[in-house]
C-alpha cells in the first residue's frame, strides 16, 4: 500500500470500531465498558480485554484526561509539520490512548506530565479524530 504524505492519515473504520468514529464525527468520545467487570476499555473491540466478557456497552467518556507521556517529533510527516507532540493520555475513566496535544506550544516547557486535558475533535475531510488540549479549568485556576 502506498501513503499520501501530504495529508494527515485518516482511519479506515471496521465494524467493531465504527461507533467510535461515528461518535467522533458527532463530537463525542465513545468508548466501551464491560457490564460484568465494570471496567472501561479502549481501543474498541467486541469483548472486554480484562475479563473476556462480551457484555459490553458503548458510552460517552467525559473527555477529561491527563498527560501520561509524550514525545515531540522533529520530523514532518504526512500532514504534520514539526515539531509536533505525540502523546499517551490517561482518560478519566482509566483507559489510555494515543493522541496529539493541541492548542499549546509544542515544547517540553509547556507540555507537563500529568497536566489536565480535555478532548477536542479535529476534522480531516470526511473523518474526525479526537485530540486533546489543556483543560480550560487549569487556566481558570491559574487566573484565580
Amino acid at each position, binding site marked *: *500500500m502506498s501513503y499520501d504524505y501530504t495529508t494527515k492519515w485518516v482511519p*479506515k*473504520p471496521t465494524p467493531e470500531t465504527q461507533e467510535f468514529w461515528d461518535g467522533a464525527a458527532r463530537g463525542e468520545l465513545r468508548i466501551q465498558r464491560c457490564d460484568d467487570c465494570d471496567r472501561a476499555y479502549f481501543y474498541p473491540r467486541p469483548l472486554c480485554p480484562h475479563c473476556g466478557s462480551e457484555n459490553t456497552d458503548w458510552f460517552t467518556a467525559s473527555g477529561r484526561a491527563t498527560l501520561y507521556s*509524550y*514525545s*515531540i*517529533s522533529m520530523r514532518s510527516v504526512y500532514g504534520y509539520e514539526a515539531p509536533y507532540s505525540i502523546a499517551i493520555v490517561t482518560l478519566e475513566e482509566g483507559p489510555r490512548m494515543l493522541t496529539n496535544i493541541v492548542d499549546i506550544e509544542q515544547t517540553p516547557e509547556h507540555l507537563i506530565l500529568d497536566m489536565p486535558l480535555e478532548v477536542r475533535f479535529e476534522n480531516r475531510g470526511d473523518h474526525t479524530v479526537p*485530540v486533546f488540549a489543556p483543560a480550560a479549568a487549569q487556566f481558570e485556576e491559574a487566573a484565580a
Partner: protein
Amino acid sequence: MSAVIIGAAETDRLGKLPEYSNMMLHLEAARNALADAGLTKDDIDGIAAVAVPGGPLEVADALGINPSWVDSTSIGGTSFLYMVRHAAAAIAAGHCTTVLITHGESGRSFTGQPEWSYDPYSALAQFELPYGVIDNVQSFPIPLLRYMKETGLTPEQLATVPVVQRQWASMNPRAYMKDPITVDDVLSSRMINYPLHLFECCLVTDGGGALILTSAERAKDLDLKHTPVHVLGTGAGVDSPLISQMPDATSSRGFRQSSAQAFRAAGITHSDVDHVMIYDAFAHLPIYGLEDMGFVGRGEAGSFIADGNTAPGGSLPVNTNGGGLSYTHTGMYGMFAIQESVRQLRGEAAAQVDGVDVSVVLGNGGSFMSAATLVLGTPDAAEA
C-alpha cells in the same frame, strides 16, 4: 534443553551495501554460516526467516534446500530470538534435525526491499497512525518521559548509554561508528524525537546474518569448526502492538516475562551471567532491559551505566559489539545481538570479554511490542 548453535556468521560486510539486494544478503549470510559450521545446504532440513520480505520459502528455494520444518515468525527485530526458541523445540520434538535461520535486510539502501507497510485496518493503523506516527522512531521514545519522571533518570545518564557503547565499538573494526563520543557530543547532537538525540537513536544499515542449530547429540557426530554454543534457556513475552496500550510505560512486561522464563529454564541466577546483549534500537532500551531483567533495581540502571559497570572492564559487559547504536542496525537487529553473544562464548569477539561462559540476549520487536530472551552458554556452562 539440548539445542546448540553450530554455525553463526554475518554478511562479509555491513553498512552501506546498495549493490546487495535483500535476498543477496540472506544468501551470503547463509553461505557464511554453513561454512562456519562446516556443513552444506543438504545438511539443512529446517528453515526460518521473517515472512516479508525474503520469506523462508524463498530463501530455502534459492538455496536449494528441501525443508521439513518452516518458521516465518515476523514480530519485529526479536523474531530471530523466537526462531532460536522455536528451532530448539522443533529439534527436541524431532520435527527436524538442523535449522538454518537467516536474516538479510537492505535497511539503508532499500535495494530489492519492499516498502514497509501497515495493515490499514489494524488497531495500530486506526488509532495510532492518525497522530503522526510513521515508524518506530516516533513511537518508541514516547514512554521514556514517564520513566524519567518516575525514576529521576537524567538526560546526562541517558546520554552515557551511547557513550559507553561507542567505547566497545571503538575496539571493533566492523562497527559502523567507531570514533569516541562524549556526553556533551550526545546532548548536542540533533534532536530527533524529544527527548532522544541523534546519537541516542540506532544506525540504519544494510546487512545480514545467519545461524545454524542442531541437537547437542548430533553436534557430537559432526566435524564442526567451532565449539557449540548451548541454548540453555529461552523465554518470550509481549506488551502491545500499540505503544499506548503498553501496560506500564516505565517497564516492559515482555522484557520481564521473557527473561524470567529464560533464566528459570536455564537454571541460572544473575550472578551466573558474564555477558549481556540488550536490543538497543534507542538508548533507553538497555536501561529498561537491565531493570526488567533484574540485573539492577528500579531506577538504578542509569547510574549503573553512567558509573561504567557495562563498559569495557566493567562488572557486567553489555552490548560489546557496539550495539544497534554503533555497530549495525538493519531494521531487525536481533540477529546481530545473537551473533555477538555467540562470538563472546566462542572467545572470538573483536572486543572479547575474559571468561564468558553464560551470555544473555534480550530482544525487542516493534516499539515494546514483542520480546524474547535467550540464555546461551559454553559446553562447561551446559554441564554446570
